[in-house]
């Protein structure tokens, strides 16, 4: 599966990042790019459980393509969400099911954010995304 323009841009930026500090600064920059959610969208039904911070994830389908919106009240997870969304934007349901998202974060040098003891919630977000995709696709 080829990367979208934004995903390719993210991969370039993170591959060039030297060390934790640059990666963290990049994460924050990518987080800034995430479009805000309205108060109505930040509803309990969109809340992802199992996160240290509040994370909302909203899925919709148009013309067989997935559209996700997400945000958080914490900045680092916002960056991780932005990197997740650029990877899945515009994917068809079958493509979304086939995609290796942990592999994507590994490519970005952010694999450690997925370790089971991390409570940042990225794992919970991936699980929720798979559930949403499974429901609609099945």
């Amino acid at each position: 599966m080829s990367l979208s323009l934004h995903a390719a841009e993210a991969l370039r930026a993170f591959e060039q990042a030297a060390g934790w500090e640059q990666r963290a600064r990049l994460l924050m920059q990518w987080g800034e790019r995430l479009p805000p959610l309205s108060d109505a969208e930040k509803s309990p039904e969109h809340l992802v459980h199992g996160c240290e911070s509040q994370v909302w994830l909203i899925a919709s389908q148009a013309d067989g393509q997935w559209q996700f919106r997400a945000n958080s009240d914490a900045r680092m997870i916002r960056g991780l969400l932005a990197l997740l969304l650029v990877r899945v934007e515009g994917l068809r349901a079958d493509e979304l099911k086939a995609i290796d998202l942990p592999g994507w974060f590994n490519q970005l040098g952010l694999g450690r954010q997925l370790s089971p003891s991390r409570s940042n919630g990225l794992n919970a977000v991936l699980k929720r995304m798979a559930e949403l995709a499974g429901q609609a696709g099945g």
Partner: protein
Amino acid sequence: MFQPSPWRADFPAIAALQRQHQTYLDNAATTQKPQALLDALAHYYQHGAANVHRAQHLPGALATQAFEASREKVAQWLNAASPSQVIFTHGATSALNLLAYGLEGQFQAGDELVISALEHHANLLPWQQLALRAGLKLVVLPLTTAGLIDLEAAAQLIGPRTRLLAVSQLSNVLGAWQPLEPLLALAKAQGALTVVDGAQGVVHGRHDVRQLGCDFYVFSSHKLYGPDGVGVLYGRSEALGKLAHWQFGGEMVHVADYHSASFHPAPLGFEAGTPPVAGVIGLGATLDYLASLDPAAVTAHENALHGLLLRGLNDRDGVRLLGTPQLALASFVVEGVHNADLAHLLTEQGIAVRAGHHCAMPLLKGLGLAGAIRVSLGLYNDSDDLVRFFEALDKALEMLR
């Protein structure tokens, strides 16, 4: 001025963690282990494991002897009247659950169980669920702004319907000794049973359960530099007599038939199944090690480090401490900064601290916080650990602000 820990080298994991660029400041969650414990575990497994209280063979006799020697050491550590007052469990949580099930028959619908607003989930949920099962009322003592259980409120709330009081000795979030003496007196005046959760308290200083005068005292080995998988339930003999048997199985039984059985009294009657033999022996070795230290020197060291921690936090703009920590730990939030972001950047810099609700969700909620960062000290920490923590904190705050 550098404040070294004279005991740092006794804990080999500290050097190993340092080689991985990790500064361990999460001691209220669990602690690193002294070489004396590692030696005891290796010795036990290398010289022949055996089950306890079952076999007449030599390895069984040796294991039982070592196991029971640990019971005596725990009794001495707590100044209990007798080793038979010490029950080994699988942790503080399982000790508290044992109490919540074993004491159930003592209560009638409408009776009141009293806890406090700062309890760890382990000393909240077993009582909450008991209250729900048995139609009891769970009464929650409020806190003062300093983070102490409010004695004036307690005097109102502990009343004739109070059948049990279960409170922490030292809060795992607020780091403050709780006023046990007046609280226990209030409960005892009503004829209520008293349970002290010593999970944090037992790690700092020596506590005399007879002087405390509680019916039950609970702690876990792993927070006291011992192995995990082992907890201790001390009970006054009279109080232990009120405990109904809870878990059933091997070696707790006196006589068993297909349709009936009679059981041993405490402690064996409450240690169903194979106990964590190696862990209990290891706890004994840890207590021997701890007993060999100069208690005044340990306390002075811990106080000096805690002073440095508080000073450093207070020196920084926007840092807000939770409560008024007296020792061992400090929990804090930073104005305008999400604790998850701070935790992320501290982790990136090899600082092992705890972020989140610290298994005390209602307490954090009551403080109006979703989470906090907690720095907790052990006797092997030194001032360089705190220097590294504060450098990382400053770096994180510079990036986030």
